[in-house]
């Protein structure tokens, strides 16, 4: 096991930290009354979510349900109309080192003149602060993170010359290099090859086993019961959230997806598959 990503003693004590109100351990993520509107149209309405223990959380819902928007609003990437979000009991500005983000693959220009290694190294920039350049510890960690996603041999490849799945793995390695305790990942398994999907899934598991939390915007209902501990069903409003076993039900899926039959069939299969695997 590589030392990469092992939570430091420091972050462990942080996780058990008493929050400002002194009422108990602060939640890993606490989203309260989050509302986002583009122009006058609400895309996310009164959304609440509390994540209290390290887990893998799948965020599902129909297209345009506000999944990515919810993630971006939590991270301050789109303006909130209202609502409050705390990470480990404090606002994001004070907790940036412990929060990592994997954007959608389409959000960057893959012709950018950087190699896979350079990209992963950027994950360490946050801890360096202004003006300091990455040194040997950062380079070593970047190399280890590339190794962890099985991309060592492509370290010096320009990122545009990687396959979609390989690009996604580089993005994950960059997030790993940040050594965060809470990750937001926007569709990390969209359009990737089977090998990459397995790598991503194994990685999510090992992150969770290290005591980290990962929120994943996910599009494939069939794999939800296999991949996640908890699920958030979203359609502009929160439909349901909680453990997959009790929350990922046909009834909740119907409420999230409305009357779209094709999707409901898929959902029924997924629920069934989930029940079989339990």
């Amino acid at each position, binding site marked *: 096991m590589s030392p990469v990503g092992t939570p430091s003693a420091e972050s462990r004590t942080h996780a058990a930290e008493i929050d400002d109100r002194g009422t108990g351990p602060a939640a890993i993520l606490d989203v309260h009354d989050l509302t986002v509107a583009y122009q006058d149209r609400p895309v996310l309405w009164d959304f609440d979510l509390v994540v209290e223990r390290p887990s893998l959380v799948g965020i599902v819902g129909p297209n345009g349900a506000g999944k990515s928007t919810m993630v971006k609003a939590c991270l301050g990437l789109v303006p909130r109309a209202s609502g409050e979000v705390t990470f480990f009991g404090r606002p994001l500005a004070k907790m940036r080192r412990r929060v990592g983000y994997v954007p959608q693959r389409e959000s960057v220009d893959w012709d*950018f003149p950087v190699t896979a290694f350079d990209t992963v190294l950027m994950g360490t920039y946050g801890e360096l602060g202004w003006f300091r350049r990455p040194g040997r510890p950062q380079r070593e960690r970047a190399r280890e993170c590339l190794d962890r996603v099985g991309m060592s041999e492509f370290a010096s490849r320009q990122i545009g010359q990687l396959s979609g799945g390989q690009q996604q793995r580089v993005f994950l390695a960059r997030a790993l290099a940040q050594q965060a305790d809470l990750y937001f990942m926007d569709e990390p398994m969209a359009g990737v090859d089977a090998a990459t999907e397995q790598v991503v899934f194994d990685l999510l598991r090992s992150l969770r086993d290290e005591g980290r939390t990962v929120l994943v915007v996910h599009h494939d209902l069939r794999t939800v019961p296999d991949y996640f501990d908890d699920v958030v069903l979203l359609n502009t409003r929160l439909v349901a959230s909680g453990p997959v076993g009790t929350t990922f039900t046909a009834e909740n899926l119907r409420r999230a997806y409305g009357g779209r039959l094709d999707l409901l069939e898929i959902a029924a299969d997924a629920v069934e598959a989930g029940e079989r695997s339990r």
Partner: protein
Amino acid sequence: MNWLAPNTLFVLVGTSLLGACMGLVGAFAVLRRRALVGDALAHATLPGICLAYLAVGRRSFPALMLGALLSGLVGILVLVGLRRFTKVKDDAAVGIVLSVFFGAGVVLLSVVQRQGAASAAGLETFVLGTTAGILPEDGYWIGGTLLLCGAIVTTFLKEFEVVAFDSQFATVQGWPAARLDLLLMAMIAVTVVVGLPAVGPIMVAALLILPSVTARNWTERFGRLLLLSVVIGFFTGVAGTLVSTRYNLAAGPTVILSGTALWAVSLLVAPHGPVARSRRRRSLRSQPEDATTDGRLDG
């Protein structure tokens, strides 16, 4: 051989330093997809130049540059306003600002010329640019701008890199993307303005874009791209000046065409140019046993 007279040497220093500066700042403009904003800004400088001339009454470099900078910034503000408050899309907004401001500038220029053709002689050069238009004092401004931009880029290299590549990721990491963009915009504005006398507002954007686009054919690393872009900008300035002085051609266009020539050659011969790339792809296809290690995995 009077085309290599001391005066020409001085002009040569001016244009080559300008090319270097354009190469440096332009690389960021292109990578951050702000190149057309530089173009809009450049065209928007003309009204300011004319107004400054009308106010001061002579070709005073600092006054004209200040006027250029101010009206360029007004152009950018209009651009931002169009984007935010109307349904006009980015490309159309750039087109509007560019043509309206430049049109206003040309009208003002004719007002200036009517006031006295002789005294306004220096101003026409601001439309197409002339290396002869570079006076010794202009050279100091160009050199100073290069030093300043070089210092800023060296200081904020890692910050500019992460914001240019992935501004959302950078924002979550805590980097102030908007403020760094503003700093980049300021560098573009100042560089464009000091480059106006030599290249003119119409073509200055090309000098901003060409060096880094050429450099991209030679390297796939960020730091090397910046360095190469500076070097290529430098030699674009040298070549353009020599050719334009030797054959008495308009300076701005000649500089741009030299840059274009360097770019065209790079497309053909550079290791990361399209020709080299398609040759590599073809050789891969003829050796299918290598494709598993060097080819793409299906994504």
